[in-house]
């Protein structure tokens, strides 16, 4: 159970306070409801580039990191398809430093020319390091546009191409800030050994005077139902072939979403899961195989990814995977198997709740989905799911015409075979 108190400031900022007396560290988390899905198709990678600029200093505080480090604090941030999230952990005694820093960059960011120039370059290096200079690094650059034709999920958070990042201008950056970085588009969470009333006073003091921005229409064009199987084959300099198969699934927060999540656990969470046991251990068809969901706010993807074992072709590996998928569609799960998955979920919930920062981020995400109570309702939802529902969702999702498949072939392997 994650306890919390919720307040809304006059300028629309949502405040959540989580109490945990087991730690001398306090977490302060600010979530902005903007991600790469809010970008326009010719300016992708912007939300993430902007995350980097947020560390370039604000009008009243030239350096963000230094005063925080001086207070014994540490911070980081992440951007995904749906949100941009900033978090600080520091000794409880120095909490006000975090309020000071986070509120000033929400009020008025510095926008130095140098910061934009350098962070553009840093992000380009990040693009190379994570997506281009890694074996299989470009998989998602290929898969997303294959699976999405309309929705902005068709591009990655890092951006469609390096060029979009190179082209970012100061005027674009300022407009982005003005539109999205406002208290009424943000969620503040404070977690630790703190008193909620005192936190509210601090929040009023530091964030209360920041003016609200224009309400956002934020209409995102949704992906129409996919009606034909999609297929892509590429050749790369990698040592082994790899198979990727994705299916469209339900939006985060819906019951169908949780059922799909559980389905991914049945298939591939743990050494006794079906794919691991049957296809890796018993049949030796794959050397690696994983099923997971992307966790997106709008309808996301159910993902299978694997590498066939030595000597097994992509075609026959895919066939075996499809047999396993067919089995979960046609045969109902045993109650024992369902119980096992529920036990695993129970344990992972309890382990996850030992981290104050995890709890803070979890609260912020649930609130940004529009229902903060989800943090505690989720457990009941999982506990209530029935075997028949798992089968129904498997039948709904795992249809040929709902699938996109990527054959990622090894140049060397292919060469050897000739």
């Amino acid at each position, binding site marked *: 159970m994650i306890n919390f108190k919720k307040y809304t400031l006059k300028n629309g900022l949502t405040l959540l306070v989580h109490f945990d007396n*087991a*730690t*001398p*560290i306090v977490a302060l988390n600010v979530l902005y409801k903007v991600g790469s899905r809010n970008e326009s198709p010719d300016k992708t990678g912007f939300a993430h580039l902007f995350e980097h600029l947020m560390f370039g200093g604000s009008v009243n*505080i030239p*350096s963000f*990191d230094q*005063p925080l*480090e*001086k*207070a*014994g*604090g*540490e911070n980081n941030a992440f951007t995904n398809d749906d949100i941009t999230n900033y978090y600080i*952990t*520091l*000794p409880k*005694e*120095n909490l006000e*430093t975090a309020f*000071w820093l986070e*509120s000033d960059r929400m*009020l008025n960011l510095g926008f130095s020319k140098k910061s934009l*120039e*350098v962070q553009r*370059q*840093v992000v380009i*290096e990040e693009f*190379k*390091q994570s997506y*281009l*200079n*890694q*074996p*299989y690094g470009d998989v998602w650059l290929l898969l997303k546009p294959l699976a999405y034709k309309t929705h902005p999920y068709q591009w990655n958070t890092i951006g469609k191409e390096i060029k979009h990042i190179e082209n970012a201008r100061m005027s674009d950056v300022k407009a982005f800030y003005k539109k999205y970085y406002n208290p009424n588009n943000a969620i503040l969470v404070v977690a630790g050994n703190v008193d909620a009333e005192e936190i509210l006073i601090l929040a009023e*003091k*530091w964030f209360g*005077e920041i003016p609200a921005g224009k309400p956002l229409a934020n209409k995102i064009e949704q992906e129409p139902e996919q009606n034909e199987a999609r297929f892509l084959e590429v050749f790369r*300099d*990698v*040592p082994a072939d790899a198979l990727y198969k994705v299916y469209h699934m339900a939006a985060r927060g819906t019951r169908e979403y949780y059922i799909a999540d559980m389905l991914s656990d049945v298939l591939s969470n*743990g*050494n*006794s*899961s079906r794919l691991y*046991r049957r296809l*890796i251990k018993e049949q*030796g068809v794959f*050397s690696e195989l994983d099923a997971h969901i992307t966790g997106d706010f709008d309808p996301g993807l159910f993902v299978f990814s694997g*590498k066939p074992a030595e000597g097994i072709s992509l075609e026959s590996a895919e066939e075996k995977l499809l047999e396993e998928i067919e089995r979960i569609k046609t045969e109902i799960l045993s109650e024992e198997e369902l119980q*096992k998955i529920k*036990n*695993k979920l129970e*344990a*992972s919930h*309890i*382990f996850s*709740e*030992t*981290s104050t920062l995890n709890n803070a981020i979890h609260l912020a995400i649930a609130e940004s989905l529009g229902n903060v109570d989800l943090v505690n309702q989720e457990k009941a939802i999982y506990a209530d799911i029935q075997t028949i529902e798992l089968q129904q969702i498997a039948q709904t999702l795992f249809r040929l015409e709902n699938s996109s498949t990527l054959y990622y072939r090894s140049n060397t392997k292919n060469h050897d075979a000739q």
Partner: protein
Amino acid sequence: MTLNRTSAPKIQIIRELNFPTIEKASLSNGIPTISINVGNQEIVKIQLVFKAGMWYQSQVLQAFFTGQMLEEGSRNFTASDLAEKLDLCGAHVHQKVNRDNASIEIYTLSKHLETVMPLVADMVRFPTFGEAELKQLVEQEKQAFNVRNQQVKHIAQREYSALLFGNQHPYGSSATEESYNLLNTSILKEFHKTNYGSDNCRIFVSGKIDSSTQNLLDKFLGQEKWGNQSLPNLPEFSSQSSTNKLHYLPKENVLQSAIRLGKRSIGKSNPDYFGLTVASTLFGGYFGSRLMSNIREDKGYTYGIYAGIYPHIHDSAFIISSEVGADVAQKAMDEIRYELKRLRTESVDLEELSLVKNYMSGTFLRSLNGAFALGEAVKTLYEFNLKEDYYQNYLNTIHEMTPEKVLYYANKYLHEDQMIELIVGKK
């Protein structure tokens, strides 16, 4: 009243650690147990630690695969039974093998410990080392190795260890594709027989603990002496760093080069260790470090650059590592050398030093936060044979650092002319 946003709120400096009591006991057969009882959740982490890391192996990968094979079947349970029963409890059991030690880590809800312990005891004491299971595992790992081997980062890591310690030394040797083909079940059985015994074992427990925890450990692991009862001799090796200081390994078609610069250094029990970590943190150990400020934030050559001390039990290294744009590898190296020289020739200003001290104290508090983190900290004390006041002394020493001391440590341990350089990729 208008808020003054230009001046920082007052801060407090962390000087005291609130380290919980370390409870020491032993099982009936003499296995020492070291426990930290902290936390509100009904969960527990148990680590069985054996001196069975790479230091003790007679061929590359022997220690690693011995550890991995524990979950592939035991006297009373097949691999599939073990997996099924552990998953039914929502418990996680991992094998970790590093240069010095091998450990089995168990994470479970306290209520399932009674079910989990007999499984773990059987895995550790009576693994079967099946031929077919090993063959499959070796194939999987070999494929993963070949994937890693494409990455400049991994190539650099492997080659650089060999440059620092020598390729025959346990800290410097590493696998090639060939080493996977030389494995067989009998050498793993031999390694297990020699090194996985009750006399070579320590148990670390953290989480919410009561008397039943200790009783369960005793019931399943403590009733009799097991495994080898004559402790193996500690093998001896001496490190030999490369005498050539500049190394370059070309790799075609890369967008980034991996770079390394460093030398062998001092370990945790050396009196200079604390002071040196302050100097090295200031230099490259946090986001605002000199390396990050110059090479990432000023030049944009990299997404990240880091420097730190990597202490093993018998030897240690100071290493600077980064992946940089392939066209700027040499420029980045020049900047690193410039910063090293600056560190040992120009006195650091007090403002920067006090920032680093405060940052490190906060990091201390963070790294000792929560039952599992504390358990890990206690394990380190035992592995490196350190006293219980180690962390408090560490914190005190951080606060006692002065600009003169930074210069002293930088000159003594971080001289740019003594560093061994490696570039993998383009230069």
